[in-house]
């Protein structure tokens, strides 16, 4: 059974429903609730002092021992999480037409993953915000944890999926700098991007990632790829017209002629990205859109646990 059968992807309009399926399924799969320890926890009994609110008095203890104790709870540590989505044209690859059986491209996959993550955050009462960029920052919301905020962000995601304009470039470096400055320090920053931003000059991008770390953010970077086509370059050996969706440039090539050099260059870039992320202590996760969202939620939970 393919991954796509798991979710009712026909109703892609209903991001909320799919996010719920993903999150609930994920939680059931874990067997153990991941929320343990996140919510408000009963930590101690304290002698009741006159004048204190009676709301927290443990009446059962009073009935049993005739002593007044209030229950005290551990303070909830709220996490602020900014989800950053790359909405440049390359993220709309592969192209989805009405007729094709394919249901997910990179942007849809990332939106679903982001929606699932937001739902998980909302359940844990953590605050989340959303930033969308292509050649500039298109959307940037503050962090909140309310249901209405979640619904609002879903409409932004919906709007973004529907916007299939081509030739939107990527200014990841510039946008990340801008976002890094505008969010609260010590946030968790989750980025979904294919990182196709001037592969020849990655320094700017790395500087932007370093900027995020410099502001004491914890960064989780999902490198979203269509592995079969973009990494492995699996195409039939017949002439193809490749179009750069961000610039409109067209090249006609025989896939086998360029496969080697393409995969080599991409591998080199991936290695460099990997090394830089290690250096800056950024968690890099390669997210293949042909696979499920589980790695996304898992990586987040691991990161969350480490941040406690």
């Amino acid at each position, binding site marked *: 059974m393919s991954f796509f059968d798991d979710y009712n992807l026909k109703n892609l309009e209903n991001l909320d429903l799919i996010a719920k399926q993903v999150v609930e399924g994920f939680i059931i799969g874990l067997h153990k609730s991941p929320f343990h320890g996140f919510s408000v926890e*009963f*930590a*101690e*009994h*304290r002698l009741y002092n006159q004048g204190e609110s009676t709301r927290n008095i443990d009446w*059962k203890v009073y009935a049993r*021992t005739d002593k007044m*104790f209030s229950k005290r709870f*551990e303070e909830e540590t709220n996490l602020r999480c900014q989800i950053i989505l790359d909405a440049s044209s390359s993220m709309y690859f592969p192209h989805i037409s009405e007729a094709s059986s394919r249901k997910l491209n990179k942007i849809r996959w990332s939106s679903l993953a982001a929606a699932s993550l937001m739902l998980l955050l909302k359940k844990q009462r953590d605050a989340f915000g959303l930033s969308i960029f292509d050649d500039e920052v298109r959307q940037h919301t503050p962090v909140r944890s309310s249901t209405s905020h979640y619904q609002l962000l879903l409409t932004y995601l919906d709007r973004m999926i529907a916007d299939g304009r081509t030739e939107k470039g990527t200014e990841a470096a510039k946008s990340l700098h801008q976002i890094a400055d505008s969010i609260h320090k010590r946030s968790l920053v989750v980025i979904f991007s294919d990182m196709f931003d001037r592969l020849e000059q990655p320094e700017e991008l790395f500087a932007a990632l370093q900027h995020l770390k410099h502001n004491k953010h914890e960064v989780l970077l999902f490198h979203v790829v269509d592995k079969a086509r973009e990494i492995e370059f699996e195409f039939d050996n017949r002439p193809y017209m490749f179009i750069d969706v961000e610039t409109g440039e067209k090249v006609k090539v025989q896939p086998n002629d360029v496969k080697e050099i393409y995969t080599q260059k991409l591998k080199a870039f991936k290695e460099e990205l990997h090394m830089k992320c290690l250096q800056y202590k950024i968690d890099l996760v390669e997210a293949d859109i042909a696979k499920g969202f589980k790695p996304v939620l898992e990586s987040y939970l691991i990161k969350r646990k480490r941040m406690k």
Partner: protein
Amino acid sequence: MAFEFTDTNFQETALDQGGLSVVDFWAEWCGPCRLVGPIVEELAQEYDGKALIGKVNVDNHPEVSMKYNIRSIPTILFIKDGEVVDKHVGTATKQALTEKIDSYLS
């Protein structure tokens, strides 16, 4: 089993013997104490011979609790050579307690 401190034996065991004593103040009806209880039991076994780790039932032994002004339970006191050197109020993880004990033993 963790050592059971009482109003009568507290002075001679926890204070006069010297070394490190870890005292967990608890009560049967207190939920968070029941979370900490097993951790204290484990620690008592692990640090057997190195530190005296035990419990005081605040209902049965109110004098000790009064003396140290215990107003919240669970409270864990770290007593070194007769002096209270540290205090932990509320639930605690085993790791946090182990770290504290190790730091006072070294």
